[in-house]
């Protein structure tokens, strides 16, 4: 027990140093104005002065929300169905969902693009679909683990036996019970979509990450201020989502393994 009590603070402190040191240094650097001692908000004023800043932020947010919606409408029901009715296909899914990690992004982008309907190929929203595919190795696992932790099939059958229609079983039992796994997977999709660069630029679309890259070639301190801003925004988002899930998480779910 003694070792455990020491392990935790050591790990925590190492993590904090690992994350906070580079972030702190970058933050400090982003406030520099000319010399080592003089600090100002110049770099941040420069960001806001870029007329495209809000535009590309908006584009990325829209595409990310699209990806989140697709995950919610297609991924979540699929994984739930696998758990309820098609357990034997889970190993296959496990393998399939790993493919986006194995297939090179170039092959993936061209191949996946030509598989999409014509109308979508010429719309930036094709990226939302691509992001869902790229996030799949993570979202599938988040959902799969979340749903394996509860006897979803049994409690669904119990609900059915007690008179719940499928719709009611989903709203009263399945949805509340898998909610945390779903929120986790949606957050993964959101985070990945907001930061995706390679595939986006291969397909010649412009989003916030590609815009940041091109802009940063003109102003190095401005570029660092931008990444500090993005990181801080991501942290804030994470924190906000964490708060929401924690508050609405009934204690019923806590400790339920």
């Amino acid at each position, binding site marked *: 027990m003694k070792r455990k009590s020491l392990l935790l603070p050591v790990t925590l402190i190492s993590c904090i140093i690992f994350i906070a040191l580079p972030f702190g240094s970058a933050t400090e650097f982003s406030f520099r104005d000319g010399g080592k001692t003089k600090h100002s908000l110049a770099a941040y004023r420069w960001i806001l002065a870029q007329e495209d800043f809000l535009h590309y932020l908006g584009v990325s947010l829209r595409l990310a929300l699209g990806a989140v919606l697709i995950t919610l409408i297609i991924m979540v029901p699929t994984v739930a169905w696998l758990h309820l009715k098609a357990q034997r296909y889970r190993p296959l899914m496990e393998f399939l969902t790993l493919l986006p990690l194995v297939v090179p992004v170039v092959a993936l982008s061209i191949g996946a693009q030509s598989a999409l309907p014509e109308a979508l190929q010429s719309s930036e929203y094709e990226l939302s679909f691509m992001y869902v595919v790229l996030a799949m190795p993570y979202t599938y696992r988040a959902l799969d683990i979340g749903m394996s932790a*509860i*006897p979803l099939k*049994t*409690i669904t*059958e*119990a*609900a*059915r*036996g*007690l*008179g*719940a*229609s499928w719709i*009611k079983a989903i709203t*009263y*039992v399945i949805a*509340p*019970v898998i909610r945390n796994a779903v929120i986790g997977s949606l957050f993964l999709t959101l985070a990945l979509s907001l930061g995706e660069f390679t595939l986006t630029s291969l397909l010649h679309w412009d989003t916030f990450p590609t815009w940041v890259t091109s802009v940063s070639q003109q102003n190095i301190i401005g570029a660092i201020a931008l990444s500090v801003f993005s990181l801080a925004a991501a942290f804030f988002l994470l924190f906000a989502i964490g708060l929401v899930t924690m508050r609405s998480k*009934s*204690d*019923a*779910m*806590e*400790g*339920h393994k």
Partner: protein
Amino acid sequence: MSSATLEIQGISRRFGDVVALDELDIKIEPGELVALLGPSGCGKTTALRIVAGLESTDSGHVLLRGKDMTEVSANHRNMGMVFQAYSLFPNLNAEENVAFGLQMRKVPKLNRLAKARELLEVVGLNTQAKRFPHQLSGGQQQRVALARALAIEPDVLLLDEPLSALDAQVRANLREEIRRLQLSLGTTTLFVTHDQEEAMSISDRVGVMNNGRLEQIASPDELYNKPASAFVASFVGLMNRLPGVLDSKIVEVLGQRISVADNNLSDGVVKVLIRPERVSVIQDSQDTNATVITRSFLGASSRVICQMRDGTVIQSLVPSAGTGSLNPGDEVKLIIDEHDVLVASV
């Protein structure tokens, strides 16, 4: 609500090559508790799930009060089901769990919670109403599950090994409680188990299944004393299996000639099945035929294990009074009670 008759007529179900159920027929009278007993994989759960509407059939019918329910979906069957374990809704507390079925039936909140409280009291959990499933012990969870199944005033109560995840003491208490409740409510009940003691102790009738078929369905007494087959005999209680010779309805075993009931075996070498309590141990006999190996004291009775001259081991259950002087190595004479001797092919 008056009790309902439940009929399972010629139900078959295969999963790929596996025949889970093969023309299963059972009729359960109103208010009766029937246990389905059988080895693992014999199709008990499948039968129960088909009755509940959670599994489809390849052929056959499920009738409730004479009405065909085969095509009715699970949520319209009004059957209360208790699963082996972990079936409570983890996001709802005990009373909300119990009230769930009533909520689905649009019973107003106050009424359904009142009813849930009432049922929790019946299963002895009135102080735990606000607890969530993970805050309850396994036995308490199963009580809540039972209360939840009873809350909808089901036409039929279906229990799939509801006690198998619990320890012996809790299991014995809860099974008596299930029986007490079932009798007082008069609910027609199908109880699946692979524990023969459990099945025999609380059922009106026990159906013994093997390979998707019903081998015999009868009262516990009849099943024990007049098993229809060697499979039933050895599945229900302990049986000695001794070599014997059959000759025109007389079997010779342990040097005794015993007449046996009608059977379709041809004369020759057979297997003779005898309950341990039908074998008595005579001490101080002139013509001994066995040697005592061990004697274990079980309370009112003792189990004596002996070895015959030909090496066959035979078990006997005798009243403890009077066998205190038996020691391993003693020469004794074993005598078989001529009632209820069963023969089977080797």
